[in-house]
């Protein structure tokens, strides 16, 4: 189906199912339970999962396949966001204008930055991309304020031209009248499920993005990219020109980033300069590594985990802890809360730090490897490894049977 073999089709169908059912899957705890804190099925976070998933999928096309580690992909994210908000300001709130522009513009920037940066490889390449992104960030924050609105972030003002704006048109982002921040809530007993237009919009685009990247992974183009990672010298002496391949990968992943940035602005009509800062570039690197470099699902998982911690763990405060551990004897409760406090609320960074270390120490292939190990535990050893859709390019060459 769709040019995929059976295994990949099955894989894609699973992904589609998971994506569409997210509003239900992420809401496992009933509202009244103390664990409702861990529910993640609200529109903003689900949108973020999808958007950062797209960002990470795109990044993985570059990093996972070619091994070129860009430390400046956030620049494209920012460009995507700015394009979309500018379209709101100039035309109207329909996202149909901004998103293509976001993809094209970030593609063009990626072409220029990639063309220059790809003259070097390894760490030199990483630092070149970092330098470009940091320059963009610093300028966007200060000198370019007329275009970016600096620290405050670009947003729509009532006196903006908005020349296509109709009288009855929604005043927040929409797609031909489907308003992004509208949701349908369904109460089922003690559970509330939120089905949000914006999320489904992102989700459909994410599925398409995932499908495209799946095709790229399985294509001759993808094979060439993996060959570049493995031995560029051999590739040249096989009659292939590595440069256009890496550049194409760079531009594609830049466009993914631009799309992600555009979607961020489509969900929330504001574009801040921090989106271009190195920490944002670093975040997508962390997502990809955490999930599993070069795997299909890994980066998406990594994105999910990091965004989950940022949004859920940071909101657990002392009061919540008390409500969880109130049943413990007082002294013990005090102790448990004292320990727990280091890891939630203002200590959520600590949790992510520890998680990064644990994952990379115990699951060298990232979270995906964790999944594979669990799977292997169920398939009594020697089960069909061939069914594993994660063509995981092997780092350590010790898997030959």
């Amino acid at each position, binding site marked *: 189906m769709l040019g995929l073999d059976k295994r990949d089709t099955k894989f894609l169908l699973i992904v589609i199912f998971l994506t569409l059912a997210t509003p239900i899957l992420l809401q496992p705890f009933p509202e009244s339970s103390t664990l409702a804190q861990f529910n993640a099925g609200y529109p903003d976070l689900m949108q973020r999962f999808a958007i950062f998933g797209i960002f990470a999928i795109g990044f993985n096309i570059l990093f996972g396949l070619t091994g070129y580690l860009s430390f400046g992909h956030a620049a494209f994210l920012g460009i995507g966001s700015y394009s979309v908000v500018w379209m709101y300001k100039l035309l109207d709130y329909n996202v149909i204008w901004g998103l293509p522009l976001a993809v094209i513009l970030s593609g063009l920037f990626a072409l220029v930055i990639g063309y220059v940066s790809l003259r070097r490889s390894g760490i030199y390449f990483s630092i070149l991309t970092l330098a470009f992104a940091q320059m963009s960030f*610093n300028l966007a924050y200060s000198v370019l304020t007329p275009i970016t609105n600096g620290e405050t972030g670009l947003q729509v003002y009532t006196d903006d031209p908005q020349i296509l704006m109709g009288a009855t048109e929604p005043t927040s982002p929409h797609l031909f009248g489907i308003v992004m921040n509208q949701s349908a809530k369904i109460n089922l007993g003690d559970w509330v499920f939120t089905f949000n237009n914006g999320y489904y919009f992102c989700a459909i685009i994410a599925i398409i993005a995932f499908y495209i990247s799946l095709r790229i992974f399985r294509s001759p183009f993808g094979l060439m990219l993996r060959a570049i990672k493995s031995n560029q010298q051999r590739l040249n002496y096989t009659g292939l020109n590595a440069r256009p391949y890496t550049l194409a990968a760079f531009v594609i992943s830049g466009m993914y980033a631009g799309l992600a940035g555009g979607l961020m602005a489509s969900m929330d009509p504001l574009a801040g300069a921090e989106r271009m800062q190195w920490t944002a570039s670093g975040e997508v690197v*962390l997502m990809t590594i955490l999930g599993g470099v070069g795997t299909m699902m890994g980066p998406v998982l990594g994105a999910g985990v990091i965004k989950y911690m940022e949004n859920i763990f940071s909101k657990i405060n002392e009061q919540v802890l008390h409500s969880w551990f109130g049943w413990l004897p007082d002294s013990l409760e005090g102790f448990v809360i004292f320990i727990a406090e280091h890891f939630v609320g203002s200590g959520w960074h600590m949790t992510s*730090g*520890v998680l990064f270390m644990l994952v*990379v120490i115990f699951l060298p292939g990232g979270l995906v490897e964790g999944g594979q190990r669990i799977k292997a535990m169920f398939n009594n050893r020697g089960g069909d490894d061939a069914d594993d859709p994660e063509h995981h390019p092997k780092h350590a060459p010790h898997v030959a049977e």
Partner: protein
Amino acid sequence: MDGILLQILNGLDKGSAYAMIALGLTLIFGTLGVVNFAHGALFMIGAFCAVSLQRLLGLSFETLDPTKKDFLGNPLKVKTPYIESWFGPEMGASIIDWSVPLAILFSIPIMLFVGWAMERGLIKHFYKRPHADQILVTFGLAIVMQEIIKHYYGANPIPTSAPSAFKGSLDFGVMLGFDPNVIIYPYWRLVYFAFSAAVITAVFSFLNFTTFGMVVRAGMADRETVGLLGINIDRRFTIMFGIAAAVAGLAGVMYAPINSPNYHMGMDFLVLSFVVVVVGGMGSLRGAVAAGFLLGVLESFASMNWIKDVIPGIDQIIIYLVAILILLTRPRGLMGRKGVMED
């Protein structure tokens, strides 16, 4: 003229901080091949060694002074440092005053230990792993170290002052025949400059006048083979890591009086120090130091008003602009060695 001279001084001073941080990083990153995102955290821990010693020396007992009131109207608690009660107020006060220089001695064993523990406990398993894994694990470690410091010291900067003997400025201009008070430079910054020059020289001579440097370089290129020659490369790597941590820590200790330390100061320097190391060229100590000074001086020049008037915002991007130009004209930075982290 005098403006330019001052900016050169500023640049050298900034550069000496960059160079010292980059020197430590390049020992780990350029020489051992570990992408160490925790290097900034080591620098920060160094600075907090100074803070801690200052606190330690300032440990006090409290007495109530009924003549004064605190903000709630209760009798004021007056703190007297133990040191002052042991050594007498004068002597005690001057020991506290000298806490930053004392912290140098205090920090060396601590940093060596931190470096040792970090290498033995964690990094040693990562030499052969992909750089991506190293990034993740060291970044995680950096966060953990930061959070621990934040937990104990809070997020605000903590003032850490240089000994009062070093307060004030040296009038350089007079020595060079300018009017007095035109070219002045703070004593402590001059001390910092001299100190970093000393540390850099020490590290250079250790690595150049002994075979240690060669062995470590060889070990990075090919651990296995070096082992075949009967050399215990692990131990040398540990030592190297310890030295790198100590250099980073010393840079931090001495930096504390220049800018009050806070828990994320390491992250502020992290990106910059990677840029410096790479611009200097992977695997080159000299390159790292040269790049540190070069970027420091250029950054200072870029902040001069007439330059900013010509190119607005140049001081925001100068470092990155120069990095791009250098890396595009010289494939391996200023003096990089071939084959180090090029794939």
